[in-house]
Every structure is written in structure tokens, then in C-alpha cells.
């Protein structure tokens, strides 16, 4: 049994037929070709599947697609040309904050939301904002550095 769901994806209206128990992560990856969202834990813990739902970062692995009818979803693909993401990407590269890269898109989406919210970029605020994203490679130090520098560079 399929359900028709319509939402805005990266600025475009999309309508998809989904199973009632289908998670947004699967809809994005398997039906809409959005590959920046990664499948890490499927339990809302690791943050590799982070997307923006009406502007706020959420885990797409524990959101049913039927729940987001009429809402707006943005993924890294949809924000990659913004000055914030450009700054984040270049600082991540410069700082050496990318290792295996599986968690990186999630971190960038979360950091983008942090910048958009206009949070004061203190180390504590940045760490707190990134707490829901797990990185197993870098030890976070260079990620925190990169986000700090990105925030400073677009101030």
C-alpha cells in the first residue's frame, strides 16, 4: 500500500509514493537520488543522515516520510552553493577535518544550521551543536576548528 506524499526538496516540489513505514532516509536515497545522507545507525544516534526539516537539523532515519507531507526538506545537495556551506567545506578541507568522510555531510548540515541560527560561535556552543553527530575517525578536534573558522570567515 502506497501513500502519496508531497514536500519541498531543495526548493523543488516533489511527490512520491511511499510505504507507510518508509523512512525519509530511504525515500531520499533510494527514490530521489539524494546520496549525501548516509545510513549509519538507523536509530537517531549518529547523525550521518542529517537533513534540514523546515530549517532545523533532524535525523532522516527515524522520520517517516508520511510525517513530512507539506514540509520543506533541504539536504547538503540543496545548500552546497550557499556562502555558509562553501566556507564550511573549504575550512573542513583546510583543517584536515575530513577522514573517511562518511559523517562529514551530516556535520556540515548541522553546522550550517548553527550558523543560520546565529549562535555565538564559542567552543562550547559549537561542541553542543555538534553533539548529535558522531565521528569515529577525527577525534572532533579538527572538525571543531573547521566550524569555528568557517563561522569567523563569513561574519
Amino acid at each position, binding site marked *: 500500500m502506497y501513500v502519496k506524499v508531497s514536500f519541498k526538496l531543495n526548493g523543488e516540489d516533489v511527490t512520491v509514493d511511499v510505504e507507510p513505514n518508509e523512512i525519509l532516509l530511504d525515500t531520499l536515497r533510494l527514490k530521489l537520488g539524494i546520496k549525501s545522507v548516509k545510513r549509519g545507525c538507523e536509530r537517531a544516534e549518529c547523525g550521518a543522515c542529517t537533513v534540514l526539516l523546515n530549517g532545523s537539523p533532524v535525523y532522516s532515519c527515524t522520520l517517516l516520510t508520511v510525517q513530512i507531507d507539506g514540509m520543506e526538506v533541504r539536504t547538503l545537495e540543496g545548500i552546497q552553493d550557499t556562502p555558509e556551506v562553501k566556507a564550511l567545506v573549504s575550512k573542513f578541507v583546510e583543517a584536515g577535518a575530513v577522514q*573517511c568522510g562518511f559523517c562529514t555531510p551530516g556535520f556540515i548540515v548541522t553546522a550550517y544550521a548553527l550558523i543560520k541560527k546565529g549562535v555565538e560561535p564559542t567552543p562550547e556552543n559549537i561542541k*553542543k551543536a555538534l553533539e548529535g553527530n558522531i565521528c569515529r575517525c577525527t577525534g572532533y578536534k579538527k572538525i571543531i576548528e573547521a566550524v569555528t573558522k568557517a563561522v569567523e570567515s563569513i561574519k
Partner: protein
Amino acid sequence: MIRFIFGRRNYYPSSGEIMASIEDPYVLIDKWLRAKEFIVVGKGVARTDAFEKALGKAKYVEDYFQSGILFIKQVLSTEPHARIKGINVEEALRKPKVVRVITASDIPGENQVGYALPDQPLLAEGKVRFHGEVVALVVAEDIDAALEASESVRINYEPLPHILDPLEALQRKDVLVHEEVGSNIAFRTRIRKGNVEEGFSKADVIVENEYRTHHQDHLYLEPEGALAIPGLDGRLTVITAAQYPHLAQSIIARVLGVPASDIKVIVPYMGGGFGGKDDEGPLTAAKAALTAYLTGRPSFILYTREESMRTHPKREATIIKYKSGAARDGKLTAIDVTIIHDTGAYANRGPFILWRATVHASGPYHVPHAKVDGYCVYTNKVYQGSFRGFGNPSVQFAAEAQMDELARKLGMDPVEFRLRNMLRPGLTTITNQLLDHSVGIADAVEQLAKVSGWYSKRREYGVSTGRFRRGIGIGVAWHGISTSRGVPDWSNAYIKIDKDGSVTAFTGIVEMGQGSPTSSHRQIVAEVLGAPIEKIKVTFGTSDAPDGGATHASRGTSIGAIGVLVAAAKIRERLNKLASELLNCSPDEVVIREGKVYVRGDVERSITWEELIKHAYSRGVDLSATGYFFLPKGKFDDTVGQGQAYPAFSYVAMIAEVEVDTETGKVRVLKVWPALAAGRIINPQQVEGQIEGAAVQGMGYVLMEQLVFDDKGRLLNPDLTDYVVPTALDVPEIAKPVYVEDLFKYGPFGAKGVGEMALIPAPAAIANAVSHALGVRITKLPITPEAVYFEVKKHGLIK
């Protein structure tokens, strides 16, 4: 010109019109080891994969999945130890969209994937040996159908008594995980150096303790997956997350009963490995390949996090009994160590892990008399396997606790005591290996003590009686480079230069986050060829490259890039000869630097890199080469554990500062200072990244990560909710590393291994800091708030 290179006589031909290029790898490795100035080596060159990864465009295994591909779901054992009386697949086969159910009897080749010992099936056969063992594969048109049908596979078990405790398993003969072995001891190791009785008789202080360390899950963010496509490129091609494409290739070939040349393995970007995908990767690949082979259709397997945690091998849990003695002058006299590894249901790499623990049992110290006994013991739990450090973090934790306790009894500072015993060139290890070069640890520890303010902090901390107590601790460790003992190890790569001057290096080394192919390999090729770094591409993780070994054991650069260097150096010799003819100079005078080819001291006599390559094509100069190098190994007697254990060792130290909340038991690591003596640092930014990542993974292991098994050996927390790993909020301040570049004679530019290093002393450093803070010796990991709380209570540390 005759050159003597570490005892081997090699030479450059003196002169002559037709001069053969130098192809001897020993000569080439030595020549570049002696380089004095560098173009890109030693610089923090950004890795090539960072942009596409940051933008989410880098492709991992799951990104190659498309609809229409068969999906494989594993059926896992629900018993820890049982005979399989029968498997009923009728009901599962009747489910919609189900294509096939595969069990052991369907395997056309050998159902044998044991790595060190032939004790392990790909799919359980006859009996299951742990809760979570893979019994069958359900293949369906889509994931939901496969999942549903997997619950309808009926396995008729006849339960057998099971055994979970390794000490009990060691004693009992009535419950055997592998009947054919006759006991539960999978493997034994032994070191006998000198005479320990004599050594202990000379000791003024003796410390004897029992240590326990626990399992750890790798928790790479990308779970295991593989996609097998029959007929692609004329072979069965498998795209998989494995740390050694050639190993995956040979295991698939064995399971299918076909030649390895019929199998191609491609490892795309991998979302972390840490050793786990060295063991599980080939098995994941084999399951997809088997399905594709039997159905003739592209087949895909993707583990859920729960499946991943239930099935893939873990860091070993250990029991280490350690007795050591020292004389009043602060010199170690003897050690007597018993190491017990809980290897779980299968030996996997257990024997190698045990050997590594055994050989490193002393820590990086000179000990005249040593006795070490190792036991790799079967139990009915998920089996142990490779994990960053490979048996070494646990034994260094024990050895370093002993060092602190001996220092305390002698009334010496722990760093002073260590320095008095530290390995230096000219000393022997506990395997009686004479260390002839590349031993920079004493220098590193001295510098580290200075930058961390060790001596004053060590005096100030550890005396508080308040709620929050600070401590500072040190862990010093060593880690042999390459395989242990006489186990063969080699490097290789293939390099070609195309007509436009672009360069491709092909290697089986994979990219799993460590970045060797996308940073250091490129730098090495650019340095040796003198070509602009933008022109260099490294094609990694393919079984079509020459077999140059696995991406494990910190060897991606240290060993993996030797082949890259040798191949590039061979081509460079040919290019220098050609350029010398074009520029009218001797080959020694040719400089190739960042795309310009000129005569040393006369920059005007020059051509471009592209012109040089055009000339090479028109004049018959071969611009392709492989870089095979077989590491020379000495003699090692396994029966007494004496001889040449490794060609060289990397050394690492860490000082950790902690604060312990005696009311809640929570330990916070405030700052860590790392030091590394790992030869040449090819890319300082990437090395820093490895150190920081390993330090935090080590901290997670010590303080929070814990796998919990029930009385049936069932893992109770196979998910990220209940298996807790560090987040951004947990990370300590990490100081800039101290580097001592103690060059390794066979390493590329003298590099040794880095990847595992900072994890190895982390448990020791943190546990010693907590012990310092509380004035109570910590002998058991993990140091959870609960564990600290009970220590505090037991010793009456607060009212």
C-alpha cells in the same frame, strides 16, 4: 661509486654509454632515504578526497546500489552453542519476492574462511558456536521481502552446554567449542629470555597484579556492505568495504571454488575500518559473491548496525597476570607475564594478535630476563579480531601500570624510572632482538615530560581529598612495523605515466579515512618523479593492482608506500638518464621539480615535464613500472619466542591529565599530550589527524565503551543508543604532537607506521592518571563512573 647500504653491497654503474637504469629496490629506497631537501614530503598537503567527501559526492558501497538488484538478509543463530539438526526453508521460500535461501550445503567451493587457523565456516555447518553466527542467507527482490522471509527460516537446534568465561574454558575439557582441537586452547605463544628466577632474585621490589580489559566495537560509521555483479569486466566483480582487496578476492575464490583471476574486487571509499573490515570485509564480500554466483544476478548485502555489532569481530577481552621486578638502581630485572585472550568462537586473527601482545609484553623497555606465556582461548561469544592496536593496547596497559607501581615502590618518578629502562639503539628486546637503528622513544619522552609540565603536575596532583581530584599519568608504548616474526611481508604498486604527463599509481591499499592513497602516496610519487602534484592520481583498493598487502597494522604508508616509492624511483632513474641526454649533462645533475626539468645550477638549460614525457614516448623509454619489495626478515624461534620479531618499531607516548569526580565516579580527560617516534612524517596534518582520532577512540575505550553479554553470550547492546562512543562534548584538549623522526631504513623516506599508535598508550596513560588522582591502582577496564564509584567506596576515599 661503491655504496654500502646496511651491509648489502650495491653499486651504481661507474660510467658507460649504455647505462642500465637502477632497478634494485634496496638501492632506490636508500637513495631517497638520504634526500636532504623536499618538495612536498613533510608538508601538510591537502588530501584529494576531502572536497568530494565534504560535499557528500564521494561514493561508498551503498551508493552503488540500485533497484532491481537482489537483496541479501542474514539469518543469525539464536543459540550460543548448538547442533544444527536441520534447516527448514520451505516457509521462507513461499514468501513473496523470495528468490533463494542459501545455506552451507549450497557452497560450491570450500566453506572455510578461517584466517590463521582453518576453524571457521562462512555459513554455520553442523553446529553454531555463538549467538549471532550466520546460518543462512535469504535472497529476495527487495529489502523488505528479504527481511520478512528471514524470520521464516526455521532452524532446528539441539542446544549444547556453552562456555563464556575464558578461565573456565581453559580448564574444561567436557565443553569444547571445537571438539577436534581437544581443548579450548586455540593457540599458545611463549617467550623465554634469560632466567626469570635469577632476575627476580636480583630484584629489590616486586609487583604482581592481575589486569582485565574488555571488548571494543569498531563502530565505523559505515556498516558492512558488498555488491556483487556477475560478468562485469568478464569476471565476477565485487564492490565491497574490505581492507585488503586481494584477501577478499582469494576468500571469494576459495568459497566459490574458482580461480582468483575470475574475481575482481573494488574497494571504493570506505566509511572507516579500524581493523574490523579487515576481518569482516572479505566475508561480507563472499556472501554477496556467493549469492551472485548462485543466482546469476547482481546481489547486494548491507548489514544493519545490529547485525554488524552482533557478527563482526571485536577487540579482544583479556586477562593479564603480570609480575615484574626492579633493583634499587631503578633497573628492571625480570618480568613474568601470562596473557589470556578470549578469542570467542573462532581463532580468526587471534594467533597473530596474541603473538603481537606477547612480543610487546615488556613495553618499550630493556628487560634482561623475561618469561611470557600466551593463550588464545575459545568461548561461545562473538569472536575477536583486528582492532587498531592489535593486542597491544591491553598489554601496554598492564605493563605501564606495573611500571608505575615499581616506580612508587622505589620512590622514583614514573618518567625517570621509565627513562632508565627505555629501549635505545644497541639494546635488545625481550625476544633478544638487537635494535640497531630507528629507536627515538627516549628523546620523545623527555620532550613530552617538558611540554606537558609533567614533573610539577605529578607532585601537585594526587594529593587532594576533595570531591574533584586531578591526576596525571603517562603511557609509553611500542608497536612493531610489518608482520611479526618470519611471516612474509612485501609491498608493491604499479605506476604509469600517460602521454600528457599525467601519472597514475595503482595500489591495493584502500582509503578508509587514513588517507594514505589520497595524501602520502601522492606526495611520495610527486617527490620522487618531480612531477607536479596535481598530475598525480592514485587508484586505490583494487585487486587489479599488484598485491601489496593489506591496509592494516599501520602499514598503508610505512609498508604500502614502499612499492609506490620503488616504482616511481625506477621511472625517475630512466627519466634522469633521458633528460641527461637531452640537456647534455650527467644523470646526477638532472633536477625535476614541480614540472620543470633542468640542469643543477643552470636553471636555463631546461625543458618542461610534458616535453620530457613526449621525448620518452618517442625514444622508447618505458614509463611504467612495478615496485615490488620483499621485507627482509631475520630468524625467529617460535618455541622460545626468541629472534627478530619486526624489522623496526614505531614508538609512542601519551601523557594524560584527568579530573575524577569522586561523588559520581565520572572521569574527565582534560588534556592529552602525544609524542610519536615513527620515522619521517610525510604529511603532518594527516599524522595529526590519526593521532587525534586514535587518542579519542582510545579514550572512549577506556572510559565509556562496553559490550554487554547475557548468560547466553547474546550481545545486549548492539546499537548506538546503549553502546556509547565519544561525542564532540567528550573530547579533551589535544596538544600538538612531539615528533622524533627516527628514520626506518626500509620505510619510504624513512617513514614508520602511524595509524594505530596513539590508541596504544591511551588506556595506560588514562588509567595511570586516574590511579594517580585517587591514589588507588586501577587494574580493570573500562573505568566507567560505576567502576570508579566502587573503587572510591572500597578504599573509603570519601566520607
